[in-house]
């Protein structure tokens, strides 16, 4: 049974489902193939469920330090299974919403694993077989349906990524958990070891600390969250240490030994050769992500992959095979849901207008550790490397009234502007709610604004975004709420 479409999307994550809906909106006859659950990693095992737990973690913190605010609790305890069920409810609501949106927009949904079969005789259509009966995520058996062969003029690969593992260190769901497993833990662990001090490991780890879990972080690089603004990382590293977390930098895990129920030994070796063993309930393996392409049969159809298996594309997101596109984690780069979505939109709009290519100047991101880190655009170093002459303006949250009233005024906002033109180039921030603050700067960068534009925009009082305004003033050495020694002026606006 063959069905023909204009556009076929493989994978219904935040890249794929957004691309499919936009394709349908633009009038293309569109289908989407999903071999697991609607919403992909982000909705099922990533952004959403982890944030449900992390938000609750913040509340737990507040309650535990309640005394400071005069809030006295007598019998406080966390019912972890109940929390996990609540989280599952949110996920169900959102993934159900995705399915409804696809349906409402007239996108035909096929359940199964999409596999490239070849081309139609004239080469115009790509054939994709949908294999039901096997879950594309974990390979488990499912109730088989009809194995359709679909034909589409354009195919978008949006199969995302999966947890990376090491040959000697694999996720087994007992002694070594992956991020997906960690979201389903129903017994509060006494002690865990996070292998890989990146975004996912620290976000999930931070939640467990709030439940009273003792945590060790083993990181191969000399810093946590490598690649992130060092000043920002410093703030959260200090807080982790204060909470009793043991951080093992420039270290690797040589082996994990399973010693029966709830007892695991993690063998760690430092760069200098020092060896140690940590006893814990389980280890969390978060050492990066790898592209999910194994099922696609890319070789057969001629789609080229590059370094580390990521699919190669051009600026229109087209692969080495005309009419086959790829978006999101599967092409590498920043592994962010919103990057995948944007690529999906650009890719589909390119079907209508071939001039449409990725033109993003500000890709904001946030790390939900404690306190949050967020950023957009250039760091001072990358700006200099790109040929700018960067100046930095900074405002600590300690100088912000609203931050003080939230009970946690740790951190700062840092803006990077060009000295000659005053053009805003980037922002890096750590502190309360910064995941919600970064967007203002993203907008400003996209608009080609100067730091003076931001400084001259009235910011409501008392709010956290006032720190952005103050940091913008600070670019010119003119912040009002922090005393600054005279800086060489970036521009003459205030003269």
């Amino acid at each position, binding site marked *: 049974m063959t069905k023909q479409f204009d556009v076929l999307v493989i994978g219904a994550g935040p890249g794929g489902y957004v691309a499919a809906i936009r394709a349908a909106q633009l009038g293309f006859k569109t289908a989407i193939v999903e071999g697991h659950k609607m919403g992909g990693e982000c909705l099922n095992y990533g952004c959403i469920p982890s944030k449900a737990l992390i938000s609750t973690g913040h509340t737990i913190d507040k309650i535990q330090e309640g005394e400071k605010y005069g809030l006295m609790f007598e019998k406080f305890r966390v019912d972890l299974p109940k929390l996990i069920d609540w989280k599952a409810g949110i996920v169900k609501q959102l993934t159900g919403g995705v399915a409804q949106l696809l349906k409402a927009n007239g996108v035909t949904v096929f359940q199964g694993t999409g596999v490239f079969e070849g081309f139609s005789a004239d080469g115009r259509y790509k054939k994709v077989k949908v294999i039901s009966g096997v879950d594309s995520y974990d390979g488990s058996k499912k109730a088989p349906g009809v194995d359709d062969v679909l034909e589409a003029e354009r195919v978008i690969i949006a199969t995302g990524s999966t947890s990376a593992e090491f040959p000697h260190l694999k996720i087994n769901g007992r002694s070594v958990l992956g991020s997906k497993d960690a979201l389903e833990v129903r017994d509060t662990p006494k002690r865990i070891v996070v292998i890989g001090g990146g975004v996912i490991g620290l976000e999930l780890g931070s939640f467990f600390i709030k439940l009273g879990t003792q945590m060790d972080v083993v990181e191969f690089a000399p810093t946590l969250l490598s690649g992130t603004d060092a000043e920002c990382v410093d703030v959260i590293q200090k807080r982790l240490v204060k909470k009793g977390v043991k951080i093992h930098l420039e270290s690797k895990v040589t082996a994990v030994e399973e010693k029966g129920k709830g007892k695991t030994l993690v063998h760690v070796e430092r760069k200098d050769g020092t060896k140690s063993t940590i006893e814990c309930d389980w280890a969390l393996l978060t050492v990066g992500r790898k592209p999910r392409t194994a099922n696609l049969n890319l070789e057969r159809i*001629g789609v*080229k992959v590059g370094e580390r298996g990521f699919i190669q594309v051009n600026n229109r997101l087209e*692969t*080495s095979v005309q009419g086959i596109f790829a978006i999101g984690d599967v092409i590498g780069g920043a592994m962010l849901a919103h990057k995948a979505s944007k690529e999906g939109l650009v890719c589909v709009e390119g079907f209508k207008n071939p001039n449409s290519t990725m033109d993003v100047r500000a890709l904001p991101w946030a790390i939900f550790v404690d306190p949050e880190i967020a950023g957009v655009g250039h760091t001072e170093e990358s700006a200099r490397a790109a040929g700018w002459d960067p100046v930095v303006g900074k405002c600590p949250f300690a100088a912000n009234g609203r931050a003080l009233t939230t009970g946690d005024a740790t951190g700062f906002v840092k803006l990077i502007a*060009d000295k000659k033109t005053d053009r805003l180039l980037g922002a890096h921030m750590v502190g309360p709610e910064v995941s919600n603050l970064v967007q203002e700067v993203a907008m400003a960068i996209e608009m080609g604004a100067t730091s003076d534009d931001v400084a001259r925009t009235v910011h409501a009082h008392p709010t956290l975004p006032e720190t952005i305004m103050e940091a913008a003033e600070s670019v010119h050495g003119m912040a009002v709420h922090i005393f600054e020694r005279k800086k060489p002026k970036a521009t003459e606006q205030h003269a």
Partner: protein
Amino acid sequence: MEFKLPDIGEGVVEGELIQWLVKEGDVVQADQPVVEVMTDKATVEVPAPVGGKITGITAKEGDMIKIGQTLAQIDGAAAGAKASTPETKAAAPSEKTIEKSEKPSGGEGAGRDQTSANGSAAPSKAASPNAHSAPSSVGSYSSPASLAPSDVPAAPIVRSMAQKAGVDLSQVPATGPKVGAQARVLEEDLLRFLNQGAGAVQAGSPVYVAQGAAPSASPAKKTKPIPANFMRDTSGVEPQDERQPVRGLRRVIAQAMVRSKYTAPHYSYVDKFECSALVEMREEAKKIGEQYGVKISYLPFIVKALVGALKEFPTANASLEESDKGMELVLKKHYHIGIAVATPDGLIVPVIKNADRKTILQIAQEINELSAKVRAGKATADELKGSTFTITSMGNIGGLFATPIINYPEVGIMGVYKVQEEALVKEGQIVIGKTMHLSLSLDHRVVDGAVGGYFCNAVIERLQNPARLLMEMI
């Protein structure tokens, strides 16, 4: 070797790249058409000068290309083993191709040999018919969000519009707030830029309406309110205007019209004449033409009448040239009459060369052939140039008359319209006769109004009285 846009001839200096007929990585043979370029005269298929593999395409569809500009590279030596299976890892080269590639390659000729050999080799089963070369050669994916000093400050919507229209924002004169020395490009800057050349330079400039200028008060009359069933709610979703890039023939027409209207001050002169005698003569001629399979319309007679009148008024068959020597009037000694033909892509004007030296039957046949060729997009550049005066016929559409725009640098254009039956007053009696309108648009710099009127009379004289036409016939 570099593949450059060759001299297309006829003084053409540049053309617009309409489309590539091959892809990166394709192997072409010498003289195989590889790219379609449109000049202000015609669309030309440019052949490959040598055989080989197309690499490094630098000219994009929609680009204006100068003669001698590099379009791509043709790799003659690379037309070897890899060529039959363009860039596809899974494809195993067949024995045949390996053998061929091991032959010492001796320049262009050898490259061509290999190409044909490869062309006949059956592509391996796994080779994708769609595989084009590695993405890196069509521009690799640059990770988003690394702002560079060369990035022009502009809002996302302006950038998106520019991208869709294929405009490089650094070329757009910007008037927005300054970011350093560089002003931000505003939406209106881009629109102004896009409209330039299409004659709508004024688009986007505000229209000021005098305040307080109320419509003149009408005498108070008792009226009733309009009942609801005569009214429709138009709130809700507003339909979005569609923007299309203006390319190809449309752009050429737009530019030509702007040049004509801005250079030659037009006036139009309209008259009507009785054409009963012409109709009769054409009916007879039609029968003669049928014997030779030639359809005869009114146009060949009109062409002849026009040529006669042009000989009488030489300034109408001329062009005004301005150079460093000053202004010169060039009186043309050829009578090449352009015939405007509507095609699905737009207006094209094929030319009847030396209409003064051809018979009616010859002209009729040429008009039929040329218009068919033009509609099929097959007219050559030569067939579309050199006209000294143009005729535009609206006879099959209707209407009374129009004021056509001169096919600059010519001095005039004549519109001819449908034949209609009419009640005419002749010697105090109402009789039924056939009439036709003529309209002439002329360049007032060269032909004054009175001269234009006499010129029109000279055309009409010949059409109203075919005997007069025959007197000077070749």
